[in-house]
């Protein structure tokens, strides 16, 4: 659809532009006297046809070599010689056409081609260079401006996504459901187990602090992310009690590798929300982090079933995907599969920073 529109604009400009030029030449011929309507029309149509053709050939050449993708200085380096080449092409077709017309129509009164050429070439070449310069500049500047507008739009869109991701941070990383359930749990613990209640307040405070104040940090070390996930699991264990078991497996020689902040936490939260919380008897969540070549691989396994058709990604997962896209530009991959034995495996692979 969009392509059709540009093509039609291009052809409109081609025909209107060259028609106007040809009309101007016709007017010059007319005001110069000795005007023949038949020759005038023939000149007009042949001019439009010939010049549309050669400029269209140029356009095909430029498109084929992707000149629209070049930056301004690269483009100028090609346009300036191209103007001269096109001027020469203009000279060739124009002089041959004019000579043929004279030869045909004014029979008997014809000078030789070499004399005709010698008389007219300089003026025609100058006119050609002028016309072609206008054509090429208009064509390329139009495309250059279009490209600039599109890239400005794209940049604005990315900036909005980045802002959104930031704004969603708190609610995505610490969902309100978790917050209120934890507070309710603490309220009960205050009476029956004050020690646990105090511990729960510490853990919840730490999680809140990270979510509130580290919201703008994109990367964190594996060590810090694991500490966060451990706090999170410990807090949830006070709520789910024996229903929640967890283990975290990571080689501490990779402690200082950088990963996306809240990435493991989001997967851990999903593992509880869609896994353990949905099983009457709960289950085990295993988190493992490994570095393989130039990639960091995070996998989280939980009991349950992932239904990729009905289960639309929640706020947390969507936010994670957006942040992965912003940070790693498509080089990170998130995969969630059913393992078939009542377990779900989420794998996140991201490049080492």
């Amino acid at each position, binding site marked *: 659809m969009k392509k059709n529109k540009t093509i039609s604009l291009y052809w409109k400009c081609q025909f209107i532009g060259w028609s106007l030029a040809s009309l101007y030449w016709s007017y010059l011929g007319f005001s110069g006297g000795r005007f023949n309507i038949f020759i005038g029309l023939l000149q007009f149509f042949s001019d439009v046809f010939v010049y549309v053709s050669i400029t269209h050939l140029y356009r095909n050449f430029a498109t084929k070599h992707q000149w629209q993708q070049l930056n301004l200085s690269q483009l100028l380096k090609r346009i300036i010689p191209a103007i001269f080449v096109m001027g020469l092409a203009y000279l060739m077709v124009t002089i041959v056409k004019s000579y043929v017309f004279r030869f045909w129509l004014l029979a008997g009164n014809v000078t030789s081609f070499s004399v005709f050429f010698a008389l007219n070439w300089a003026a025609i070449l100058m006119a050609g260079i002028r016309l072609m310069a206008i054509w090429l500049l208009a064509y390329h500047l139009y495309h250059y401006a279009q490209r600039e507008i599109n890239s400005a739009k794209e940049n604005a869109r990315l900036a909005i996504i980045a802002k959104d991701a930031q704004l969603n941070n708190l609610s995505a990383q610490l969902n309100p459901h978790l917050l*209120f*359930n934890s507070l*309710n749990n603490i*309220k009960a613990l205050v009476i029956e187990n004050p020690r646990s209640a105090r511990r729960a307040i510490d853990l919840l405070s730490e999680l809140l602090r990270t979510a509130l104040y580290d919201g703008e940090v994109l990367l964190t070390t594996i060590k810090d992310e694991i500490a966060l996930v451990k706090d999170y699991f410990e807090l949830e264990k006070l*709520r*789910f009690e024996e229903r929640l078991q967890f283990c975290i497996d990571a080689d501490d020689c990779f402690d200082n590798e950088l990963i996306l902040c809240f990435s493991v936490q989001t997967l851990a939260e999903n593992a509880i929300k869609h896994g353990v*919380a949905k*099983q009457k008897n709960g289950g085990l969540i295993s988190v493992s982090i490994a570095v393989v070549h130039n990639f960091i691989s995070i996998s989280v396994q939980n009991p349950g079933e992932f239904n990729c058709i009905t289960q639309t990604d929640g706020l947390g997962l969507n936010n994670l995907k957006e942040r992965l896209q912003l940070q790693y530009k498509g080089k990170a991959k998130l995969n969630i599969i059913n393992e078939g034995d009542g377990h779900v495996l989420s794998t996140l692979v991201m490049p080492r920073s």
Partner: protein
Amino acid sequence: MKKTRVIIIDDERTARDEVKRLLENYGDFEVIGEARNADEAKTLIELLQPDLLFLDIQMPEKSGFDLLESLDKVPLVIFITAFDQYAVKAFEVSAIDYLMKPVREERFAKAVEQIKIRATNVTAESQIFVKDQHQYHFISWSKVYLIESLDNYARLYFDDKKVFIKSSLNQLEKKLEKGVFFRINRAQIINLHFIDKISIAPEGRMNILLKTGAVFKVSERQSVKLKNMGRT
């Protein structure tokens, strides 16, 4: 005075303890059971026939809504959830009350007051919980005036609404109160309290005009039964 018998249903022990603790201030409530999930709760409810449930919505495997739908006779219900009120509204349930975790004592007191009013004014009106498309309804059987059969489903008419439930007319007929609901033919059950007029057609069959203005034909066999019912 008879105490209101309560069952608390929540998958988190501490959350159940919280409700028990809140109830301690009210002498006329008695906690007769606790359940950790919908299946446990169903067994317990059918066994103990409580007056009131404190019910969490999110539970493993089956939600609080699933539980209510599976019950033939639904007690009074107070939902307790960590969802915010807007999220709860999305479920479109006309429940007696929602309490948000953590529950404030003032808020709890209000909910309990409501229950006391309901429990004294309404004489144990039996109700069911039905999901109709996107909306959940608590429906008192006393409001249902007509039940129509639709294959394995039944359509319940009440107020100016109708809902489907997954139950055959035969199954329903067994559960319903005998003096109130009457099977008039193969496809329809009516609530006798809604009868406005009964007329007898020439061949001995009856026609029933309900207060809603609709007329229903009673089959020959059931006409005889209905006549006998009147005599006894």
